[in-house]
């Protein structure tokens, strides 16, 4: 086997980097081969040329020698300003309890963020170490406020950068706002739908209850308590009953079990429910002179002929106060019922 050395010259750098080619056999003439056989370098049998396994040069001694020659030992540190340092502590990783791998060998070069943070921390550590040294040597690191000098990047460039940053921020804010608005609208819509449905349900229930009462299926007028006024034409007048509950919602029923206060009742009775007054409740001469509503027993039996005596208008005494104290006169509802029945 003939082993051929490809001695490479430095000027043929470029070819080196490509693939190594096979040795050209025509260089070895027969004469040379015979000589080699005679010397004993060749053995009988089939011989073919191979490449020597490529030796990677690592001349450690040479490197060290070169470094020693090349190094400028007369230069003080202040001229070079070089530092060797590991990256600074990673606060974030420590707080999360992760193992921070300090060496650069452990760094995964494909994880962009981790890698860049590693470089950043290395720079930070360098600065932290160098600051006290520079301060000792009286070299400033911060330029004073009135020091104007040319910067590496022109003002125009910095303006562009600033504009881009601002644009990015505004876009983000806009998208955030749009998202929030969409959420709000959705929520608002939901709430609105709910409220409408609730109202419709209530209305339906009310109507059905009223119808039931009309048809005589139930004789309880509970559904009217705390409810809106009913508008049933042809039905027996329930105006009086409605007055007690005018303007109250069912929710407030529990709160105002006594019903509206006396003043309210009086005013409702007097002034009705709005609209053109029918004129039936006016104090006219005739109504004043009408004493048909006077019941002597009731008037005298009230215990001391209270106030103005029994000649006062009957409407005024209608719903005043719940406690009647010994009157035999039935209550308004009872009277209404009786009225309705007869």
């Amino acid at each position, binding site marked *: 086997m003939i082993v051929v050395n490809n001695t490479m010259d430095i000027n043929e750098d470029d070819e080196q*980097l490509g693939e190594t080619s096979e040795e050209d056999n025509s260089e070895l003439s027969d004469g040379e081969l015979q000589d080699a056989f005679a010397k004993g370098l060749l053995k009988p049998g089939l011989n073919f040329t191979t490449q020597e396994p490529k030796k990677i040069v690592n001349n450690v001694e040479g*490197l060290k020698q070169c470094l020693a020659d090349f190094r400028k030992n007369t230069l003080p540190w202040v001229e070079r*300003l070089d*530092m060797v340092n590991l990256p600074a502590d990673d606060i974030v990783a420590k707080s999360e309890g992760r193992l921070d791998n300090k060496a650069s060998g452990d760094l995964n070069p494909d994880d962009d963020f981790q890698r860049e943070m590693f470089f950043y921390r290395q720079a930070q550590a360098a600065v932290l170490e*160098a600051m006290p040294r520079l301060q000792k040597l009286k070299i400033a690191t911060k330029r004073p406020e009135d020091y104007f000098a040319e910067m590496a990047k022109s003002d125009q460039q*910095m303006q562009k950068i600033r504009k881009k940053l601002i644009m990015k921020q505004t876009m983000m804010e806009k998208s955030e706002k749009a998202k929030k608005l969409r959420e709000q609208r959705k929520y608002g819509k939901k709430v609105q739908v709910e409220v409408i449905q609730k109202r419709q349900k209530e209305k339906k229930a009310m109507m059905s209850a009223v119808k039931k009462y009309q048809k005589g299926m139930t004789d309880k007028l509970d559904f009217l308590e705390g409810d809106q006024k009913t508008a049933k034409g042809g039905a027996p007048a329930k105006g009086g009953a409605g007055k007690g509950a005018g303007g109250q919602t069912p929710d407030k029923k529990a709160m105002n079990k006594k019903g509206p206060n006396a003043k309210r009742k009086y005013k409702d009775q007097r002034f009705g429910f709005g609209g053109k007054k029918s004129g039936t409740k006016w104090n006219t001469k005739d109504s004043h002179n009408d004493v048909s509503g006077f019941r002597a027993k009731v008037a005298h039996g009230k215990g001391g002929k209270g106030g103005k005596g029994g000649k006062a208008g009957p409407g005024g005494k209608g719903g005043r106060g719940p406690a009647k104290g010994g009157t035999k006169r039935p209550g308004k509802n009872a009277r209404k019922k009786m009225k309705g029945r007869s």
Partner: protein
Amino acid sequence: MSVLKRKRGGQGPGVKAKKVKFVQNGMKPQITETEQNNEISVPAPVSMGKWRNKERVLVFSSRGINFRTRHLMQDLRTMMPHTKADTKMDRKDKLFVINEVCEIKNCNKCIFFEAKKKQDLYMWVANVPHGPSAKFLVQNVHTLAELKMTGNCLKGSRPLLSFDPQFDKEPHYALLKELFIQTFSTPQYHPRSQPFVDHVFTFTVTDNRIWFRNYQIIEEDASMVEIGPRFVLNLIKIFQGSFGGPTLFENPHFESPNTHRRLIRMATASKLREKQMVKELQKLKRTENKEVVTRDVTDDVFATPAEERPVHIELEAPAAKVVKKNKHKAFKRQRNQKR
């Protein structure tokens, strides 16, 4: 205190550069020849004689570079005030010509960019007269002009250099570190330098490559922003001489861009070849002689025991089917009738 527009290089407000009849105190001895003619205006020595570390770096390139490399070169010249530029070198000239060019320009370091195939960028960093030189493949170049690099620094301010501890572990990295320090650090009191130290160069070894970053120091508590440029250097070889000489170190992990591209092409080619081979095999299978099977195994699958019916051949076309579009209407009528 009034706002001072400070000229680069240390001239205070009281110094007049032009028409100085008497040379200032503390001048360098080099200007003794002009002492004879006091009427000739002599600019005062800018550095006041304190600039001792005379490092000059020549930054130039070969032909065929693209815009990114050109910008990178410009950025390096902006960042390092101790650099000089030169015209593009022809590819035909051998590399040792660069030594002569540097000598002419009185530079003792050189950064030479070489572009091959308009794709690959190689960078030589060399100490010119005798010293070592190194060749790198440059990748992932980002220049100063990129809008994501938001930092800024004084033009010509001195940098702080930060190295990874790995640079001290291997001898070849130690040599590279020394080379970088001497090339990249701005000499103190350089006439074009600013006296402040407001940015950091970091060199880190990861994935057998050297990563270069440039950060601006904003606060004393080390909050930083990247200025740029940034690049990745893949070491190829270190030579003992400048642009020549015996090889001191060869990077075993280096894969030339040509081989890299070739590998990718081979991978796709092999996939294609496999597909073709499979197709050929299928063709072969189709054309080869197939043995005749006498009995069909599946013959009696559908054999149902039923009597044979005479085959009825229809000679006339069947009647056209009446399409009832509104079938449902009939049903509906029927339904209504039912009720």
